[in-house]
């Protein structure tokens, strides 16, 4: 990739200027936090009180802090999108006006956590319903109101997690449950279908 993946917009360059002025040790810790919260779109990187503290510590305004945070997140987002290695990231950053010590901070943090972050991003889905968990119970029917026949049956519970509505995670923790009862024949049929999925998956690897 020869061109600069970060572009050189006015806003980006201004933010880089602010970053350049920051204390390198504190900046390292800020980056650490950003990467931890990375990929969780609806979560704040710092709480409001933390932000005030940071402003005092770093002696910057709240708009300046915002642009620092946005700029760093943007750098990580682009890096993740192109799946850059630590060395490549550092090469890319050298094309910007970012100071050498800050470039190194980015590189070391990205090298440490790239694998986790990219793994997490790969798992990200846009499907509204995702199977989250499976639970089951096996039982033996001894008698019922219509017949005395004994039979083994199993109940499966499929926990479906909804991903579409996590803008309000606490108010509406959306998950749906699917319950199915299977006797042995039905379960065998399901098992064969899962086996054919597995066969397909095996051909892919």
């Amino acid at each position, binding site marked *: 990739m020869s061109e600069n993946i970060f572009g050189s917009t006015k806003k980006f360059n201004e933010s880089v200027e602010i970053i350049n002025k920051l204390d390198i040790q504190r900046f390292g810790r800020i980056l650490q936090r950003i990467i931890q919260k990375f990929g969780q779109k609806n979560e704040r990187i710092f709480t409001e009180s933390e932000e005030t503290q940071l402003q005092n510590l770093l002696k910057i305004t709240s708009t300046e802090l915002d642009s620092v945070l946005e700029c760093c997140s943007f750098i990580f987002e682009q890096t993740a999108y192109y799946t850059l290695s630590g060395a490549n990231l550092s090469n890319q950053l050298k094309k910007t006006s970012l100071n050498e010590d800050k470039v190194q901070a980015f590189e070391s943090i990205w090298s440490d956590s790239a694998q986790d972050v990219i793994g997490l991003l790969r798992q990200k889905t846009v*499907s509204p319903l995702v199977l989250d968990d499976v639970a089951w119970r096996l039982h033996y029917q001894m008698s019922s109101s*219509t*017949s*005395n026949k004994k039979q*083994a049956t199993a109940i499966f519970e499929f926990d479906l997690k909804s991903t579409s509505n996590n803008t309000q995670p606490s108010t509406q923790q959306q998950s749906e449950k699917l319950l199915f009862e299977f006797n042995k024949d039905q379960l065998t049929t399901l098992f064969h279908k899962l086996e054919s999925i*597995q066969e397909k*998956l095996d051909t892919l690897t």
Partner: protein
Amino acid sequence: MDKVSFFGYTIPPEIKAMIPLLGKLESPNQTKEIMSMAATYIITKKINTNKQTVTQLKETTDSIQLKLEKKANNAEDRNQLSIIFTGCYYLLKLAIKKRVTTQTFTNDLNDLKLPQAFINDISALYTSQYKDFIEKTNNDKILFHQLVNFKWRVDVVISSSFTSRVMIPVILMEMTDNFGQQKTFEVSLDIFHKLRYNVSKVLKDMEDLEQIQILSKFDK
């Protein structure tokens, strides 16, 4: 005391009420028809009702009621026919629940001192419809929803807005239950393996369960 008959230690009141009436009925054809109505009712009646079976049951019940009313010449007669219908229904229901053989069925009815023609007719009915009765009771029990349709698709994700190279397979599944509820969802590889493992584990457990001697002894 010798063995207990299939309807238990005491004769259920529904059957008891029928006994004196049976002798009074002139035509054996009439009782025969009532019996077969009771049999139809048993086969149609379902616990796990969805809309279709509800209407089916209602139609059957209505037609039975209509037939009973037609046969009866007066109110008292109608009442008697209803009692006989209920009695037949109970006799058959208890016999089916215990899965008694035709031999036991006939013997136990003989002990009740029912008219011979009635016993012959209802035993014949019991024998001829036995298979249907058993099949119906096997299918009819309180159940959670059942999986009636399962479709799947295996995709490989090439890229996403988060990363340009993803290259991992995901599975889409669509499950439909017997109440028509349909859900489409995505299953990641990890969860798919978990699902597959659990399904095969339960199957194995079921097989192990069938090997247990004591449980097979219960099933008699």
